[in-house]
């Protein structure tokens, strides 16, 4: 009896201590290191050296669109096929696959928006050692060396990039499994001979030399992590390739990691890992995988920006090593390792940062143009308990005169975590609730996760099951895992039929209680499987013919794709969707917004929100944000205020909190803090026209909205490592206060010869300096670039829709030559008519030679707007004698003005012109 109790006691202590350790930080033991991942450790064991591959130049074929050549692995005589494409827009695509794989290897579909258009490649020179190809321009060349195989991309005499220069190309060919006995006893020579023969037969094809025997290594045919077995019926299939970037010290990208903007050297540590995972309480400054993966790396130096897009959706590890190359030139070496699939790399040659963004977006598309209101403020919590709670919070915002556009419902709103349903007790009348929000021109988001409760009385489940849309386990049955609802199935979103069906579930008559102001949040779509290996799906689960191993990092991408499609369809193709996702892949920018997952109410996490979103922006995903306040734990009032101030200047602006934390609506921290939060949110609302314009640009050009400084100042080395401040578009520089009890920050203002204006005081500062700024609790250091014109709507109302017809105030910040330029973009804010019917206004505002004028940038588009120009503030101005307005019809009128000699701000009173027409203001 006593001993039983003792045991029980011990057990409890253990359980308790496990919980305690979990609450402190991430439980690293739940996630693999490279050493614990068989293919990674296998590949990483291979050291740089002479490549075992030879390009068989005699097999070279050159067509209009591409070049092919066979690569021979001299060790095992396996042949690979290399395909080289010169793509339009200064890109090169390198594809390597097995020449004759015993079964097809996975090639990632649906991520590229189109088959990338090619350009003619021509041979400049050829001998038995190498082939020189022209990549266009005067001296852009690609050199293919035969023995050992390597590729060099040159500009003139300069090597821009080399492939396989360190000999790390490794391609594990698919093979027939040796018989089970040899698997248990690989030492038996007789067994080996058999397989050797077999291999030889398969690969020799006229080769006389003996192929080296290949020995199975542990983990090739099965692997166990913790209690989870991965059966690996297809055996080893991993791939690896190295890239060398001479002259490069700074590389960026490959999100998602909770790490600084500039990628670190991974020598001696783990590589950066790309494997979408639901990481509980993630750690900062760590290359561990997180919720999403974009296998795109950018390199940058003062001369050139380039990009590498490794199109592979399997688990991937990226080693980064910077150091001195030959002759004291800095060099960065990058090595990609993926578990399966093929090598398919897009080399984006820049040369300017914006060229790389254009190149990458020509492959995977641009950021979806979001509804204007989704750029406003979002109020979320796990959970708003019931309709009364929603209504009380809504009322609270009005009572405290804080604007908001979206209120969110987390998983508790459903009937037992059955998505597309409502808890009947808590939300008996969802349409009444939505109508109440609609009456205030506000919106709602409900969560719809991809794990589906296994419950024969749940329509969604029975439909998916009967249609056979679930992912299958290795034995062919429906894969089941544990998630919020308990036992759950996971729909196979890689199946287009499944996606189509899923999209149809968002129709108003399918999703009961939904209305046009209800939008969607896809969480847990890594996918999260509580009882799966590394809290995700078993790699041997099956998506039709493919293993989950092959498609893993694509799953979340497809979930968001299908959901966004559903939202478009429910409105008959008229309305823009808004879908937030936690998991993502290259191309996810086409479907909505991304947030940085389950962060914590800590100053470090507030700081980290900047590099995390900057990294996402660099690889196309502009609509990024972090949970304001921090998801886990409870923020101090100071941290909460600072987070609102920072979040107000990041693309996706949503407060969120864990179920176990005390309430933290903005008015719960005393009147002073309420006022500070109100002010931060109001600043966001005044700038919505600017944010909207940035997203319009992002959609058109693929330029990130939130940018690292180096993107705009690519030659200023001082900017290359900055990740505590950022630019929104080109014209606003933000340096949020992210330290506790801060009395000042030092912001770097870039640009030699440029000027910057404090947006609050209009004080003018020179560029190319570190500026010390004293701060108080109300400070949000933001600067407008001299030479820019920014349009704001200063009449902040309770939601962005209410501000639709409000007038603009222009902030004309003069550069040192007295010039400035800006744009204004207006449309209905929520439909596709800007695209389908050309219903929009896009105008250039330009100040030069003492005249400010508005001219049409898109004469063939039209949109009627009630908005007008209320006020013009010219920063860095001199006092004029008179100001006159020339209207569209040529009529002139005088405009009253006020000049503040202390701030050098000239304020023009009420020009009153419509925002959609031509006009000129003359200062005399």
């Amino acid at each position, binding site marked *: 009896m006593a001993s039983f109790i003792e045991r029980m006691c011990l057990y409890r202590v253990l359980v308790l201590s496990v919980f305690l350790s979990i609450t402190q930080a991430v439980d690293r033991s739940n996630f693999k290191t490279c050493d614990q991942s068989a293919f990674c450790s296998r590949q990483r064991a291979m050291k740089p050296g002479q490549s075992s591959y030879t390009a068989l130049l005699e097999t070279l074929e050159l067509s209009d669109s591409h070049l092919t050549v066979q690569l021979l692995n001299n060790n095992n005589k396996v042949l690979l096929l290399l395909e080289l494409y010169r793509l339009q827009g200064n890109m090169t695509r390198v594809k390597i696959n097995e020449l004759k794989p015993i079964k097809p290897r996975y090639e990632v579909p649906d991520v590229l928006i189109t088959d990338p258009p090619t350009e003619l490649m021509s041979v400049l020179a050829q001998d038995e050692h190498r082939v020189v190809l022209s990549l266009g321009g005067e001296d852009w060349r690609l050199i293919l060396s035969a023995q050992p195989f390597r590729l060099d991309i040159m500009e003139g005499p300069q090597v821009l990039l080399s492939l396989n220069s360190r000999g790390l190309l490794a391609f594990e060919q698919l093979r027939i499994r040796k018989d089970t006995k040899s698997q248990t006893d690989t030492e038996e020579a007789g067994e080996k001979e058999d397989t050797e023969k077999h291999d030889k037969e398969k690969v020799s094809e006229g080769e006389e030399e003996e192929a080296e025997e290949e020995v199975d290594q542990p983990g090739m045919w099965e692997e166990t992590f913790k209690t989870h077995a991965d059966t690996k019926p297809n055996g080893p299939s991993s791939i690896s390739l190295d890239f060398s970037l001479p002259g490069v010290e700074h590389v960026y990208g490959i999100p998602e990691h909770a790490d600084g903007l500039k990628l670190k050297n991974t020598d001696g540590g783990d590589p950066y890992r790309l494997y979408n995972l639901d990481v509980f309480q993630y750690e900062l400054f760590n290359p561990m995988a997180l919720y999403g993966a974009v296998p795109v790396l950018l390199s940058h130096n003062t001369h050139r920006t380039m990009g590498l897009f490794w199109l592979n959706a399997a688990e991937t590890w990226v080693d980064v090593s910077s150091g001195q190359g030959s002759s004291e030139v800095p060099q960065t070496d990058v090595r990609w390792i993926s578990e399966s699939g093929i090598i398919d790399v897009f080399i984006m040659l820049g040369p300017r940062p914006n060229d790389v963004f254009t190149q990458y977006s020509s492959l995977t598309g641009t950021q979806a143009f979001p509804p204007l209101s989704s750029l406003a403020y979002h109020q979320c919590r796990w959970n708003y308990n019931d309709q009364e709670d929603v209504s009380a919070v809504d009322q609270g915002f009005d009572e405290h005169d804080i604007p908001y556009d979206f209120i969110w419902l987390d998983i508790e709103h459903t009937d037992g975590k059955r998505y597309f349903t409502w808890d009947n007790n808590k939300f008996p009348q969802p349409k009444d609730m939505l109508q109440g929000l609609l009456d205030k021109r506000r919106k709602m988001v409900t969560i719809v996760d991809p794990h589906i409760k296994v419950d024969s009385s749940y329509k969604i489940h029975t439909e998916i099951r009967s249609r056979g849309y679930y992912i299958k386990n290795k034995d062919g049955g429906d894969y089941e895992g544990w998630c919020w609802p308990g036992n759950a199935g996971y729909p196979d979103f890689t199946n287009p039929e499944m996606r189509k069906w899923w999209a149809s579930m968002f129709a108003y008559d399918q999703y009961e209680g939904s209305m046009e102001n209800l939008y969607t949040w896809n969480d847990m779509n890594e996918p999260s499987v509580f009882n799966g290996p590394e809290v995700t799906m078993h790699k041997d689960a099956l998506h039709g013919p493919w293993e989950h191993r092959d498609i893993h990092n694509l799953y979340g991408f497809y979930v968001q794709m299908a959901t966004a499609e559903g939202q478009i369809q429910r409105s008959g193709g008229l309305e823009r969707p808004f879908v937030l996702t936690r998991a993502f892949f290259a191309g996810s920018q086409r479907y909505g917004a991304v947030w940085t997952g389950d962060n914590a109410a800590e100053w470090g996490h507030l700081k980290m929100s900047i590099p995390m979103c900057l990294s996402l922006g660099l690889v196309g995903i502009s609509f990024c944000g972090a949970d304001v306040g921090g998801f886990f734990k409870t923020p101090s009032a100071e941290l909460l205020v600072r987070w609102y101030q920072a979040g107000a200047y990041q693309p996706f602006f949503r407060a969120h909190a864990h179920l176990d934390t005390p309430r933290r609506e903005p008015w719960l921290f005393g009147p002073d803090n309420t006022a500070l939060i109100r002010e931060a949110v109001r600043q966001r609302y005044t700038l919505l026209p600017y944010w909207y314009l940035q997203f319009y640009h992002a959609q058109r050009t693929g330029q990130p909205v939130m940018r690292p400084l180096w993107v705009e100042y690519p030659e200023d080395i001082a900017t290359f490592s900055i990740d505590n401040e950022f630019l929104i578009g080109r014209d606003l520089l933000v340096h949020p206060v992210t330290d506790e009890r801060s009395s000042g920050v030092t912001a770097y203002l870039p640009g030699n010869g440029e000027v910057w204006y404090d947006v609050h005081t209009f004080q003018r500062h020179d560029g190319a300096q570190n500026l010390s700024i004293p701060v108080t609790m109300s400070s949000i250091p933001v600067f407008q670039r001299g030479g820019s014109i920014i349009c704001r709507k200063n009449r*902040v*109302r309770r939601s962005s829709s209410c501000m639709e017809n409000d007038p603009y105030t222009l902030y004309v910040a003069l550069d040192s030559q007295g010039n400035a330029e800006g744009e204004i973009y207006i449309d209905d804010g929520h439909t596709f008519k800007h695209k389908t019917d050309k219903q929009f206004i896009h105008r250039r505002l330009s100040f030069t030679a003492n005249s400010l004028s508005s001219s049409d940038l898109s004469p063939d588009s039209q949109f009627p707007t009630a908005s007008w120009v209320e006020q013009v503030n010219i920063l860095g101005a001199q006092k004029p004698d008179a100001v006159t307005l020339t209207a569209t019809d040529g009529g002139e009128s005088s405009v009253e003005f006020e000049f503040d000699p202390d701030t050098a701000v000239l304020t023009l009173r009420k020009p009153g012109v419509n925002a959609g027409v031509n006009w000129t203001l003359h200062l005399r």
Partner: protein
Amino acid sequence: MDFNLAGVHWLSDLLLCTQPLPVPTIPTERQFYEENKPFTCLDGSSTIPFDRVNDDYCDCRDGSDEPGTAACPNGSFHCTNAGFRPTFIPSSRINDGICDCCDTTDEYNSGATCQNTCREMGRKERESLQIMAEITKEGFLLKQQLIHEAKRGQEDKQGKLTELQGSKKGLEEKVEALRTVKETAEDPEKEAKERHLKAWEEQKELIRMEKDKTRMAEAFLELDDDADGYVSVAELQSHLELDPDSDGSLSETETQGLLGGADKVDTSTFETVWSGIKDKYLSEVSQGQSEPPAPVETPQEEESRDFVSDHDSDHYPEDYAGEEDVEDDEEDDHEEEEEEEEKVPPTVQTPEKREDDEVSMPPYDTETQSLIDAAQKARDDFDEAERALREVDDQMKNLEKEIGFDFGPSAEFAYLYSQCYELSTSEYIYRLCPFNRVSQKPKFGGSETNLGLWGQWAGPEDNLYSVMKYDHGQGCWQGPNRSTTVKLTCGKETVVTSTSEPSRCEYLMEFTTPAVCQEPASLDEVLHGHTEL
């Protein structure tokens, strides 16, 4: 945009025609907006031509030049709301497409179709005010009653306390007097009992010696195997239990030593030998039949110890398990447990009875017995008096505690003391015991959860008694200890009207009681005050 002007407020005419505002909006400030005269911002910051009042451009820092438009970020708009209550709204709500003023005046140019609902709202408000007024009135009357009762209760308690203080004094004296009586009666009792005991001891000794002699004779006969009238070394040597050094063998020398140095002893000499060996000696008969040894004192003690330890092993784990169950440190469970433990009867009495196995003591003689009876009575009387005193003490303590509680400015909340109120929801039964605790019990099985113990009054400074705070309830995983805020509103009845959990483990309870009803302004006044506008 739809500019349906029919019935539009004058403000819209103003805006559309950019005419100056004919009448200022705010009655009290009407004087400052004098048509065709320069307007000075209400904060005096600047003066502007009157045509810039309400011209949809903010000229005054305080927003006072735009009382009818949304131009000023800090402006406010006055809804007259004829038929209802006039109100100010932030000027950002003018023409935002949302009907804020029931008289529709805020949406004169937004295209929103607003209905004038002032009359209806006024009617509803009057109705509800009327109902509230009635509730307040009745509630206030009830409150007076409560105050009265509380006062009387307080007085009663005070009186009772005084009374108790008086009786306590009497009782203390009585206890002292009875103590003397008891002590006086106990002296002769003690003497008589000791006498009796001594006589009994003597008698017992005689009996014991008699028994011993019999045993000795029996032993002699038993040992004297050859019946020669002597016990020899050889005859004794088989009794290993007598081995002085307990080495397992009884040597000749050792045996001789036992026999006082002789080789054999006769009956009379055996007497001296016997006294040396009798404690260890085991009868051959009993040895052979492995009969349990005669009950002597030592085994008895062991047995009783066993009993106690048995009790321990039975009981200890329960305690242990109990503590585990209340991992969350629920104080009440501990209390209950302690009570339980107290209820467990004392267990060490039983073994004493075993003495009866021996020859029992003869009853006291009549004289002694009467002395004992007299002393017992004195003791009982004393105990009773002492108990009565303790009771009075307890009562006084409880009374003092109750009197010391903050039951509101006029003790109007006193009636809630030691009461409990329940509210049943779909899942739980919530229970509020004012000034004590709040708890939650699942309807369909499961143990009760402590949602907080009485903390303090926690209303705002000017209305302290409108909120009760209960804290230090059962702990939450990764969260705080549960706590409950109880909001009190005026009502005729004392009821828990709702509960919610706005944050994890922070509960909110709404509770109506007449005790918070404020003295109503006369109903006429209330209604009049609103119809005037």
